[in-house]
């Protein structure tokens, strides 16, 4: 077969594979939705996942949020100083955090921490036949394993984003007011003037979507792991890469729709 034909064929195959995978992810999501509304939902499974995704991510989210807010204040200050508009640093940090950096950075950090762990844990359960064992014991694996993780992702990433937003603004305040000597009153006044509740809500809605993507992709990759330890490693890497890309791409689409 000649070069161009082979190349087109290869591209076609890659496109087909990706469309197929997208379809399988969607089917898993629909299956999880249908199991989500069927009682009984085991609350302790959901709480356990919420603790894992949410509570155990607080430290890394606090750290990321704080330093992002601090560096934004620092960068913003140098720009705004040229126009003698240093007091706008506060509102810039707050808008940037609530609309964009809070949701995106939080979900990327949670993907690295919890999305990868979901893929690794479910992948190991798959290759050691623990998922088959669940099915054999008449327990639906989607309901038992995936539903609690999806609920935890959708609920906890927005809550972590609240923490990240708050810490970002606090970090920005510390750098702006205490290090760069911006007037504290002007800093705060501009935040209240320019940041609306809509900015915060839309940011949190984005975070919920990212939380769903993170947990859905982590679960999908883990659930469909093949091939022993190597397969688990591959599933984990693929989950983090695919979830991160999906978060960044969907961020653009959601931002275009919302703001």
């Amino acid at each position, binding site marked *: 077969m000649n070069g161009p034909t082979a190349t087109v064929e290869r591209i076609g195959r890659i496109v087909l594979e990706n469309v197929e995978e997208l379809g399988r992810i969607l089917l898993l999501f629909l299956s999880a939705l249908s199991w989500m509304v069927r009682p009984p939902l085991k609350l302790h499974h959901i709480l356990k996942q919420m603790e894992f995704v949410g509570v155990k991510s607080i430290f890394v989210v606090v750290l990321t949020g704080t330093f992002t807010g601090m560096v934004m204040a620092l960068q913003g200050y140098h720009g705004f100083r040229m126009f003698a508009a240093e007091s706008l640093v506060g509102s810039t940090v707050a808008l940037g955090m609530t609309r964009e950096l809070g949701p995106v950075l939080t979900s990327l950090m949670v993907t690295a921490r919890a999305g990868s762990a979901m893929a690794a844990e479910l992948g190991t359960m798959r290759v*050691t036949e623990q998922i*088959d*064992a669940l099915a054999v*014991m*008449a*327990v639906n694996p989607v309901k038992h394993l995936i539903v609690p993780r999806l609920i935890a992702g959708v609920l906890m990433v927005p809550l972590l984003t609240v923490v990240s937003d708050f810490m970002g603004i606090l970090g920005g305040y510390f750098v702006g007011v205490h290090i760069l000597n911006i007037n504290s009153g002007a800093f705060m006044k501009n935040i209240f003037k320019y940041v609306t509740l809509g900015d915060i809500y839309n940011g949190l809605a984005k975070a919920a979507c990212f939380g769903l993507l993170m947990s859905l992709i982590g679960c999908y990759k883990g659930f469909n792991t093949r091939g022993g330890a190597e397969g688990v490693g591959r599933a984990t890497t693929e989950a983090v890469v695919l979830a991160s890309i999906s978060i960044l791409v969907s961020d653009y689409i959601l931002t275009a729709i919302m703001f």
Partner: protein
Amino acid sequence: MIQLVDIHKSFGKQKVLDGLNLTVEEGKTTVIIGRSGGGKSVLLKHIIGLIRPDRGQVLVDGEDITLLNDKDLNEVRKKFGMLFQEAALFDSMNVAENVAFPLREHTKMSNEEIMDIVRNRLNAVGLSDVEEKMPSELSGGMRKRVGLARALAMQPQIILFDEPTTGLDPVMTEAINQLIIETQRAFNLTCVVISHDIQSVFEIGHRVAMLYEGRIIEYGTPEEVRASRNPVMVQFLAGSIEGPIQIL
């Protein structure tokens, strides 16, 4: 009674089961033998509905489970217990919680009642004082015993064993064989065992079925199978490299 009727199953271009027919008699141990990678595990997974055939019927007590939805299939699965090759214990739970798992999922028993059953089943497989241990702290033989205790928890009528003695030393192999025999008698179980350990096959099996090229080519009592003149059977039992079975 379990009947597999004209089962066909392919994965991609590879045909694994090709018009397979098998009847598993109630209250007896049927051992399925065959070469590695020959589709024995696939056959076992058809019996419990983990894999659906491309064509054919899987009848459990007269009901074709290939036609059932998830909910009805789960009801049928409550008749079954299964011991997986590596036991498939949940490594996030200790031994007691593993054995208690199906009871907690499907019954409304109190914790005391559940723990009584857990201790009873662990005793039945010859284990005590291991309730608090995690699966990673157990040896291969102990893990399989716990797996069997978990399979027995819901008092199933049928137990499927996927290579129960693979990877065990001769003493532990014999111990597990004895355990299968005793458990089958004590609980009057229908057992389906996959194995390629010839000595175990004749020790535990009331019926032996040989799977070759996607079909059952020999079926009968251990004595009948041992006396078979089918060249495939003769080569397999002798463990010879000369004969119709191709070495890939």
